């Protein structure tokens, strides 16, 4: 622990010191002659438009939310894929003994005990397990697809729709929608449509 702490301290000190030294050298060496051109924000060589603190269109968030959900669900596929691949290898009864041992060791945690199995028995179990695993993932993926289809049908993936819908909802409750919703469509809307 103390050694580890020393390492942490060392890295912190070196890291902070490295930056400080360079900034200091730059400060001392460079001539200080500011002019508007030099002080301007650098943005890929283009003149900047507006401030960088603009608010992004809310529609980005909707798409981002949907993306996050479906993206993370894919995490469930990783352990499944590992197990399924190994089971497939074991399901082949003609596998040679050395590679079989290797696969079993990778698949079964060391503390799990079980009766010793012959190659044929093991292949049998592996095939059954494989089918169950396949059924599991198909159900899981099917449910995901239903969710995806649902929000597609609802139009949550459409870029243009959200504004129109919102205006409609405002009008439905008898209120005048906020002016920013009624603005003529921006450039990207025209491209999307």
């Amino acid at each position, binding site marked *: *622990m103390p*050694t*580890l702490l020393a*390492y942490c301290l060392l890295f912190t000190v070196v890291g902070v010191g490295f930056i400080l030294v360079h900034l200091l050298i730059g400060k001392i060496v460079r001539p200080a002659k500011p002019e508007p051109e030099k002080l301007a924000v650098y943005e890929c060589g283009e003149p900047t438009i507006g401030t960088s603190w603009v608010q992004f269109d*809310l529609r980005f*968030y*909707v798409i981002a*939310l*949907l993306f*996050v*959900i479906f*993206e*993370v*669900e894919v*995490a*469930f596929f*990783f*352990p499944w894929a590992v197990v399924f691949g190994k089971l497939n290898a074991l399901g082949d009864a003609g596998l040679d003994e050395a590679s079989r041992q290797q696969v079993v060791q990778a698949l079964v*945690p*060391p*503390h799990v005990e079980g009766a010793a199995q012959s190659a044929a028995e093991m292949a049998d179990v592996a095939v059954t397990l494989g089918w169950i695993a396949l059924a599991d993932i198909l159900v899981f993926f099917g449910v995901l697809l239903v969710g995806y289809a649902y929000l597609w049908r609802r139009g949550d993936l459409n870029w243009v729709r959200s504004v129109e819908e919102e205006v409609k909802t405002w009008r439905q409750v008898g209120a005048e929608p906020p002016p920013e919703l009624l603005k003529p469509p921006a450039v990207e809307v025209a491209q999307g449509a």
Partner: protein
Amino acid sequence: MTSVGLQECLLVGAVLFVAGILCMVTKRNAIGILMGSELVLNGANVNFVAFAYFHDLFNIEGQIFALFTIVMAAAEAAIALAIVLNFYNNHVTVDVDAAEDLKG
């Protein structure tokens, strides 16, 4: 060089947890509070992974814990962000101090 042990990993988890709690308590911005709750979940996740790495018995189970936590955290973040969006539509701010219609 000393190897990193269970203690150090749990320390990282504890730091994340405390940072998350502090973030939730001090932030007035709804998004900031949600980031705090993500930190708390990740603190727990570091714990799970650390225990899984150092305990043979917990090896598989700990990883499954972590996996489910990640997915649950994402689902919670998605719902929470949608609710914040709805709040923004009604209040035109994400400052939680604006949530003061209901009290008593």
